[in-house]
C-alpha cells in the first residue's frame, strides 16, 4: 500500500471521463472523433502505419508497421491479419510476423507475392510508407515452447520461412543459438528469402545448421531424404511451414514414425473433388441473396455481395468466421463432406453452399 491516497480516485475519474466522452459523441464513438487528429485511432479495427517498406529477396517485402493504441503484442512465429483498401474495398490476409517484439514498438511482417495473389501483389508493390493499414491482434500457436527442446528441426519451403525467421531472430537476440537444424527449400539460392541473414547466422552460431535445398537443380524435397539430410530427425522437436503438398507429405512421414510435427499452413487443404452444385445463399440480416456456385466459399460469396461477415485466417483454422446456419446444407471444401443442421455454426471460409442456404448474417 505505497500508493498515496491522492491517487485513489483516479480510476473513477477516468471512468467518468469515458462516460462523458461516450455521451457527447453518440451515436458515434469517441475514437471516431479522435481519428480526425490521430489516423491510428478508429472505432472498430485497429490501425497500423507503414513506417518502412524493405525489399527482401525473391520479390518479397517486409512492412515495418507501427500499430495504434490497443495493440496487445505478439510472439515470434505468430501471424498478423492485415487489412488493406484496394480500389476502395477492404481485403484481409494473414502474414507471418518476422521479428520478435521490438523495443521501438514496430511490428514486422514479410509479404511474398504469390501467383495470382491479388492482395499480396498489392502489398508488395503498391504500399508506401505513411500509409495506414488495418490490423487484427496477432494470433496463432506456431511458436517456440518454453523451455526450448535441446534439439529442434525446422523444415520450411518458399515463404514458409517467414514464421521461422521470427523464431530464429528471437533466439539469436537471446544469445547463442541452440542446436537447431533449418532445412529450407527454395527454387534457387537467390530465391531464398532472408538468405543472406540465414547464412550469416549459420556462420556466427556453430550449433545452428542451415541446409539449403535448391529445387530447380536438386528437385523437390522428399521426406524419405530426411534420413540422409538430418539423420537424427527422429530425436528433434519439429516444426514445418510451407506449401500444402510438402506439409501433407511431412505430416504423413512423422505420423508413420509415431512422432508429432507442428505445422503452419498458409492455405486450406482443399479436397480434390470438393465441388458440387451451389445454390441461392441468403444472408438474412441484411436481406441479401446471391446465386453461388458450389466451389466458392460462403465468405467470398458474401463479401463479393457487400455483406459484412466476420473473418479470420481464411483457411479453416481459427473459427473467426463462423456464422449460424438457418437452413440448408454446406459442403466443406477441405473434405467434400456435406453437412448442416439449422443452428450449426458454419466456417464460412471453407464452406460452400450445397443447395440453397440461409445464414444468420
Amino acid at each position, binding site marked *: 500500500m505505497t500508493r498515496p491516497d491522492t491517487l485513489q480516485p483516479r480510476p473513477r475519474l477516468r471512468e467518468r471521463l469515458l462516460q*462523458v466522452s461516450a*455521451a*457527447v459523441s*453518440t*451515436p*458515434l464513438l469517441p475514437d*471516431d*472523433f479522435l*481519428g*480526425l487528429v490521430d489516423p491510428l485511432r*478508429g*472505432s*472498430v*479495427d485497429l490501425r497500423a502505419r507503414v513506417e518502412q517498406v524493405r525489399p527482401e529477396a525473391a520479390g518479397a517485402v517486409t512492412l515495418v508497421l507501427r500499430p495504434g493504441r490497443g495493440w496487445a503484442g505478439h510472439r515470434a512465429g505468430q501471424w498478423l491479419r492485415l487489412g488493406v*483498401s484496394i*480500389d*476502395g*474495398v*477492404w*481485403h484481409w490476409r494473414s502474414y507471418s510476423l518476422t521479428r520478435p517484439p521490438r523495443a521501438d514498438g514496430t511490428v514486422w511482417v514479410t509479404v511474398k507475392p504469390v501467383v495470382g495473389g491479388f492482395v499480396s501483389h498489392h502489398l508488395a508493390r503498391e504500399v508506401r510508407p505513411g500509409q495506414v493499414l488495418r490490423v487484427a491482434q496477432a494470433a496463432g500457436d506456431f511458436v517456440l515452447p518454453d523451455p526450448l527442446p535441446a534439439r529442434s528441426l525446422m523444415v520450411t519451403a518458399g515463404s514458409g520461412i517467414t514464421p521461422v525467421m521470427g523464431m530464429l531472430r528471437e533466439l539469436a537476440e537471446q544469445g547463442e543459438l541452440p542446436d537447431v537444424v533449418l532445412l529450407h527449400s527454395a527454387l534457387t539460392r537467390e530465391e531464398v528469402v532472408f538468405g543472406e541473414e540465414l547464412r550469416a547466422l549459420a556462420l556466427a552460431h556453430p550449433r545452428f545448421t542451415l541446409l539449403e535445398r535448391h529445387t530447380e537443380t536438386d528437385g523437390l524435397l522428399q521426406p524419405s531424404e530426411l534420413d540422409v539430410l538430418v539423420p537424427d530427425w527422429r530425436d528433434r522437436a519439429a516444426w514445418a511451414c510451407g506449401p500444402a503438398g510438402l506439409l501433407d507429405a511431412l505430416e504423413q512421414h512423422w505420423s508413420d514414425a509415431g512422432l508429432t510435427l507442428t505445422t503452419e499452413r498458409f492455405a486450406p487443404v482443399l479436397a480434390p473433388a470438393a465441388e458440387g452444385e451451389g445454390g441461392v445463399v441468403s444472408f438474412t*440480416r*441484411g*436481406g441479401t441473396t446471391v446465386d453461388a456456385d458450389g466451389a466458392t466459399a460462403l465468405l467470398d460469396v458474401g*463479401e463479393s455481395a*457487400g*455483406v*459484412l461477415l466476420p473473418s479470420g485466417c481464411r483457411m479453416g483454422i481459427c473459427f473467426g468466421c463462423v456464422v449460424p446456419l438457418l437452413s440448408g446444407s454446406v459442403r466443406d471444401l477441405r473434405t467434400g463432406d456435406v453437412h448442416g443442421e439449422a443452428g450449426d455454426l458454419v466456417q464460412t471460409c471453407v464452406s460452400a453452399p450445397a443447395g440453397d442456404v440461409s445464414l444468420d448474417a
Partner: protein
Amino acid sequence: MTAVLERPVTPDAPPRPALAAVPSTPTTPLTHAQVEELGAKLDALREEVLASRGEADAAYIRSVIKAHRTLEVAGRGLLFAGILPPAWIAGTACLSAAKILENMELGHNILHGQWDWMRDPEIHSSTWEWDTMSPSDSWKRTHNYEHHTFTNVVGKDRDVGYGILRMSEEQRWNPYYLGNPVYNVLLSLFFQWGVALHDVEVEKVLSGERSKAEAWHTLKAIGRKVRKQFTKDYLVFPALAGPFFAPVLLGNLTSNLVRNVWSHAIIFCGHFPDGAVQFEEEQLEGETRGQWYVRQMMGSANLDGGPLFHLMSGNLSFQIEHHLFPDLPSNRYAELSPKVRALCEEYGIEYTSGPLGKQYLQVLRRINRLALP
C-alpha cells in the same frame, strides 16, 4: 404531436371506380415491350456504375465523414463561446450543417447499403447508427423496404402523408384534413419525431397487421435514442459550458430544428411537387422490373442546384436517380442524371425537376388544396 400520429387511419379505402378520371393517375403511352426495353437500358446504367466503383468513391465518402466530424467539433466548440453573438451564429451554422450532412448524405445513404461494397465495418449499413430519433434497424425496414418498394402507392407507401397529411386525392377526405397546412408545419418542425414514430406503424397495430410487442420494441428503441440525443444536446454539452449553458442549449435546439425543417423540405419535394404522381394498389399486381422503374421515375421529382446544394440534400436532389438505384453510391447520381433524363425524353416520361423554392411552393399548394375535399 403523438395524438396526431395515433389518429386511426383506415388503410383499406373502398375500391374506387376506373382510374382514368383521377388527375394524378399515371398514364404512359408505352407498350409493354418499350417498358421492358427501358428497364434493360436502366439496368445497363446501373451495371456501368457498379463496375466502376473504386478508390475515388471510397475517398469521397471518407471525405464527407471527415467533413461532418470536423463541422460537428467546430460547431460544438464555437457554441461554448456562444455568449458572443458571432460565435453563436457560426457555431449553430456549423452544427446544423453537420447534423444535415450526418442525416442526409451519410446516414440515409449508408443505411441504404450504398457503401457496403467497401466492406468497411465503420461505413456499413449493418453497423451504422445515425443522429436522429429513428433507430437504424426500424428505419431500414420502413424506408428501404416499404417506401422504396411501394413508392407513391397510396395505402402501401406510408410516406404518402406519413399517416398525418393528405397528400393525394386518392386518400379519402375527412374533416380532420382541414388541418393539413398546420400539420405540415408541425411535421416540418418535429420531423425527426415524425420519422421515428412513423416506424411504430400505429395504424398497422390497430389493424392487427403488426403485433403490439413489435411496436413496443420499436418504441423502446426510439426512447433509447431520444434519451441519448437529449442527454448529449440538452444536458451534457450545456453542462460542460458551465455558466454559459444557455447559448449552447439554444444552439443545439436550433440545429436540430434547422435539420428538421431542411430535411422535411427536401424529402417532401422528392415526391409531392406537380408532375410527381401517386398510384393505386392495382399498379403493383404483376408489376415487372421495367414497370417498377417507370413508377419510380413518374413518382419522383428532382431539385436543381449546384454541387454544394446536392451534397447538403444528401443527393436527394437526384430523387429520381435515387429511386431508380437506391443502392448506388450517392456521389454517382449527378453523372447518371443526364442519362436518365435522356431516357425519359426518349420514352416520353416526364422528368420532373425544378429549383427548391418553386418545388416547395407546389408542395405547399398541394397540401393546402387537399385540406379541402
